[in-house]
């Protein structure tokens, strides 16, 4: 993907997020004019950005959104819930388009019609809410021909296929004649068969019979008095036709038919909406001279429309007109315009009935005073020193000069007028420099001085007026200057389309492959930030991981230097160097960690929308409070947090918070409050989700857990309320009686717990019946580096994450007691179950008892419980970069991962939950 597109997508997502936020803020404060202005600006800028690419589907929807927001900002349309909903939908659509672009580099074809539909719905909404009724009224949707000849010739009776054939032939240079043959009354007596004659019309494309008068009752009919008229459309030459009708020459009329009069869209005008945006887009393509794109959108529209519709017929014609060589731009424009009104194209507007190549739409010129309009005849005024300049430059120059004249002629008496005059003089000087017109420079400076002295622009206007005559000289004589549109209006050279952005950017940026980030891509000037591809950070992360591992080899080296080679001095030096490298590596690691840190707002920002949508669906009133959004944690942690948090929030909305009536009955405010807050405690991030809903009844939970065989009766008896409510995190437990459409889905809170524990976090819930529920999630700030304690058992070493280590103790064998089948000991006044690591891992060896008759016990934390692991020995703690197990190893529940040790060996990291 080219860097510009990357930049666009990344910025688009920011804007979409911003738009959604602003919309939701506006729901609370619909009159906040600052918000309205900001919202407009975001939509407007996003639309502008999308215009740099060929994403008409996106631009179309955004354009409609921009117009709508413009109207809201100006007070023409009031802000409403419906409006917010529709705009949010539109932004969701744009977001989908962004995804498609990111994944496939393009927008899927089937989005076209949706984009029209969405844009249309926004426009309809806007029109319907306009305070002053400015909506154009479509008076009569019935297509009516405007040109008499069409009615007269009854061309609209011809089937479309015949007219297409006729049009195609006419465009190929054939002249088509409409033959009207009105046989005389007594022709039958002369042995004639006018019908046969008519049917034999050479190169007849179509024919019809009509009655010249109403038929009398059958009894009065004179069958031998001819009362019919025959008409035929023929591609034969005039001579051939006259030859054919030579005996009845006086009874026929030959009318050459203008090819455009065949172009009559027909069909059901009411069957489908006509998309104003399609018309606008089509006209824009015309302006840009991009007939290929126009043809392709027309084709898409046609495929999606019922062929019986008037619209479809018009589209078929449009495509035919586009395929005609050379295409007639004016005719195409007229046809597109007819799509808007659903009326037959008004071909009388065509200035030339022959196919014309030239672009006809000449932009209106800005009033520039009479002086500038007459340069065509002044080619005698030549400048000897005038440099030969290109036509493009000449046109640009003329337009720049015209603009400067316009600026000088502004009569707003602005206080900054002198500055404006200086700037204009600067422009004139520069332009003359650009064309090497050194003579002019002195004259401009003189005029500027005079203007400044007089504090008005007259001297410069004089110079410019005189000058504009000269400028015309370098222009092609045939082209009057007045036709040059001022800068900004569409350029003249429609026929030669400029390369599109997509084509030129790779070339422009090929010099260096690195994305050219703006110096300050961030909105705030204070915090200068840089957007970096995640992959680059990950690479840094891996590299620092390798350094950490490599440096861990140094202590081993020092050890060998001393023990194996007996050079104690060297060993000490290595250790000293190690200390330095170790410090730098740690700092570096820390610095990279910092880069990976991101605020929880990344996850929080989706909640306003989520809460709004869900609560509305449930008919609940919810006030969402977000706190501590700036709290940071490692990107992986934040990302891992998203799904569990959404699940919890859904649960709270679904089961926690009550309906307004229920709340009122319970003496609570109708609107519930859901608070999501984050803060940092030591090296942990704490996220709390608090609702003031109905709470969780521990008795209900206990009963259910018992029913579901999650706890036995004994546990049921002695369980505290707190323990009970936390049972909702147990596997296979779901509190909802009925699986709800929102949070149900067959997964319970155990999924949340699993997700949190996966990133070494813990989750806890406390609740008061009738008051509400609080869920507290604690997470490590970072998961990239794990501190592990090396433990030894049966001559093997393992890593035990320090998060789980409560304490390490040596306990005399005499203090171990067996309760039922399990070994326990009393530790700090509590009974702790002891398990032998060897037996847990399936190792046959017995734990080693040291000379003092003690076993080594590692007290490990397991959620809210502790368990003692009997091992053979403890070693040091080290930092490791834990790598997930892959392949068959990934299935081993006993290990959470592996880490590379300084000596090159692999350390298996124990997963306490998996073994106990």
């Amino acid at each position, binding site marked *: 993907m080219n860097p510009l597109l990357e930049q666009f997508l990344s910025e688009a997502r920011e804007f979409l997020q911003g738009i959604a936020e602003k919309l939701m803020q506006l729901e609370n404060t619909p009159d906040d004019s600052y918000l309205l202005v900001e919202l407009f*600006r975001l939509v407007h800028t996003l639309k502008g950005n999308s215009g740099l690419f060929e994403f008409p589907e996106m631009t179309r929807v955004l354009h409609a959104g921009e117009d709508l927001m413009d109207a809201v900002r100006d007070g023409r349309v009031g802000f409403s819930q419906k409006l917010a909903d529709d705009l949010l939908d539109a932004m969701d659509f744009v977001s989908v388009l962004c995804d498609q672009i990111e994944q496939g580099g393009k927008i899927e074809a089937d989005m076209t019609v949706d984009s029209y539909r969405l844009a249309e719905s926004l426009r309809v909404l806007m029109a319907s809410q306009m305070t002053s009724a400015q909506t154009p009224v479509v008076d009569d949707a019935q297509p009516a021909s405007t040109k008499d000849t069409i009615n007269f010739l009854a061309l609209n009776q011809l089937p479309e296929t015949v007219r297409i054939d006729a049009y195609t032939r006419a465009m190929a240079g054939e002249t088509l004649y409409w033959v009207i043959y009105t046989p005389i009354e007594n022709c039958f007596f002369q042995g004639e068969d006018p019908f046969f004659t008519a049917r034999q019309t050479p190169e007849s494309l179509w024919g019809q019979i009509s009655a010249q008068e109403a038929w009398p009752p059958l009894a009065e009919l004179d069958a031998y008095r001819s009362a019919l008229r025959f008409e035929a459309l023929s591609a034969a030459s005039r001579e051939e036709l006259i030859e054919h009708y030579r005996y009845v020459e006086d009874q026929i009329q030959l009318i050459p038919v203008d090819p455009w009069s065949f172009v009559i869209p027909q069909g059901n005008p009411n069957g489908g909406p006509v998309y104003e945006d399609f018309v606008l887009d089509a006209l824009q393509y015309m302006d840009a001279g991009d007939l290929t794109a126009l043809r392709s959108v027309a084709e898409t529209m046609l495929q999606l429309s019922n062929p019986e519709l008037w619209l479809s017929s018009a589209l078929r014609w449009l495509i035919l007109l586009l395929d005609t060589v050379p295409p007639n731009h004016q005719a195409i424009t007229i046809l597109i315009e007819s799509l808007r009104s659903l009326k037959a194209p008004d071909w009388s507007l065509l200035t030339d009935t022959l196919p014309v190549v030239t672009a006809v739409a000449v932009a209106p010129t800005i009033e520039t005073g009479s002086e500038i309009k007459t340069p065509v005849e002044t080619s005698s005024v030549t400048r000897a020193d005038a440099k030969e300049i290109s036509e493009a430059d000449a046109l640009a120059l003329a337009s720049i000069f015209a603009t400067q004249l316009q600026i000088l002629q502004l009569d707003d008496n602005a206080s900054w007028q002198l500055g404006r005059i200086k*700037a204009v003089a600067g422009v004139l000087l520069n332009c003359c420099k650009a064309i090497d017109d050194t003579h002019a420079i002195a004259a401009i400076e003189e005029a500027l001085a005079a203007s400044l002295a007089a504090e008005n622009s007259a001297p410069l206007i004089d110079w410019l007026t005189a000058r504009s005559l000269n400028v015309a000289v370098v222009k092609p004589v045939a082209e009057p200057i007045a036709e040059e549109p001022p800068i900004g209006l*569409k350029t003249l050279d429609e026929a030669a389309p400029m390369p599109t952005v997509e084509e030129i950017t790779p070339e422009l940026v090929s010099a260096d492959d690195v994305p050219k980030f703006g110096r300050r891509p961030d909105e705030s000037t204070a915090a200068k930030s840089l957007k970096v591809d995640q992959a680059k950070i990950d690479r840094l992360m891996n590299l620092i991981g390798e350094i950490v591992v490599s440096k861990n080899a140094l202590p081993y080296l020092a050890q060998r230097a001393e023990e194996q080679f007996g050079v104690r001095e060297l060993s000490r030096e290595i250790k000293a160097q190690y200390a330095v490298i170790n410090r730098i590596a740690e700092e570096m690691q820390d610095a990279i960690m910092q880069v990976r840190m991101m605020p929880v707002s990344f996850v929080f920002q989706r909640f306003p929308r989520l809460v709004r949508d869900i609560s509305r669906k449930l008919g609940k009133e919810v006030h969402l409070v977000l706190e501590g959004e700036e709290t940071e944690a490692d990107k992986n942690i934040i990302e891992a947090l998203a799904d569990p948090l959404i699940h919890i929030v859904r649960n709270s909305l679904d089961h926690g918070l009550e309906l307004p009536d229920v709340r009122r009955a319970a003496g609570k405010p109708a609107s519930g409050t859901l608070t999501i807050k984050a803060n940092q405690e030591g090296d942990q991030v704490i996220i709390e989700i608090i609702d003031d809903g109905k709470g969780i009844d521990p008795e209900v939970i206990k009963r259910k857990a018992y029913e579901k065989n999650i706890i036995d009766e004994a546990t049921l008896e002695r369980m505290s309320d707190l323990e009970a409510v936390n049972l909702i995190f147990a596997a296979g437990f779901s509190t909802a009686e009925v699986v709800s459409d929102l949070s149900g889905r067959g997964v319970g809170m155990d999924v949340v717990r699993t997700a949190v524990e996966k990133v070494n976090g813990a989750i806890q819930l406390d609740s008061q019946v009738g008051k509400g529920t609080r869920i507290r999630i604690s997470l490590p700030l970072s998961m990239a580096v794990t501190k592990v304690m090396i433990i030894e058992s049966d001559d093997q070493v393992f890593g035990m994450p320090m998060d789980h280590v409560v304490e390490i103790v040596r306990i005399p064998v005499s203090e171990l007691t067996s309760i039922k089948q399990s070994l326990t000991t009393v530790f700090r006044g509590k009974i702790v179950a002891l398990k032998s690591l060897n037996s847990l891992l399936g190792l046959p060896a017995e734990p080693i008892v040291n000379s003092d008759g003690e076993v080594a016990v590692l007290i490990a934390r397991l959620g809210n419980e502790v368990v003692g692991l009997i091992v053979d020995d403890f070693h040091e703690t080290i930092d490791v970069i834990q790598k997930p197990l892959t392949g068959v190893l990934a299935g081993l529940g006993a290990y959470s991962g592996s880490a590379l040790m300084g000596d090159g060996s692999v350390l298996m990291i124990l997963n306490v939950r998996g073994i106990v």
Partner: protein
Amino acid sequence: MKRILIVDDAATVRMYHRNILESAGYSVDEALNGIEAIEKALQESFDLYIVDVNMPKLDGYGFLRELRGENISQVPAIMVSTEAEANDQVAAFKAGANGYLVKPVKPEQLLTHVRLLIGETV
């Protein structure tokens, strides 16, 4: 080397213009809004400003008025906008722009105007 300040709140548009201008050998700086642009204009001199209309804090009109009115810089300025209406152009000229280009600006169109307004020979 001629220096150009791009004043635009949209990073994508800045990058687009920057790519075009840098490929033609101009040195480019960026400002995200009118206030930042004024700060930059006060600190160093540019040969041309390319100014967006709609920006937070201070919009393009405000920036140009300040530029011209406070005599901060009187070098040429081009306003870029998505609107092609004549009254939008007049508003730009009134504020102090010397040129008006409709977004998306075609690279050749931009470069031709920049070159002429800056006063560089072909």
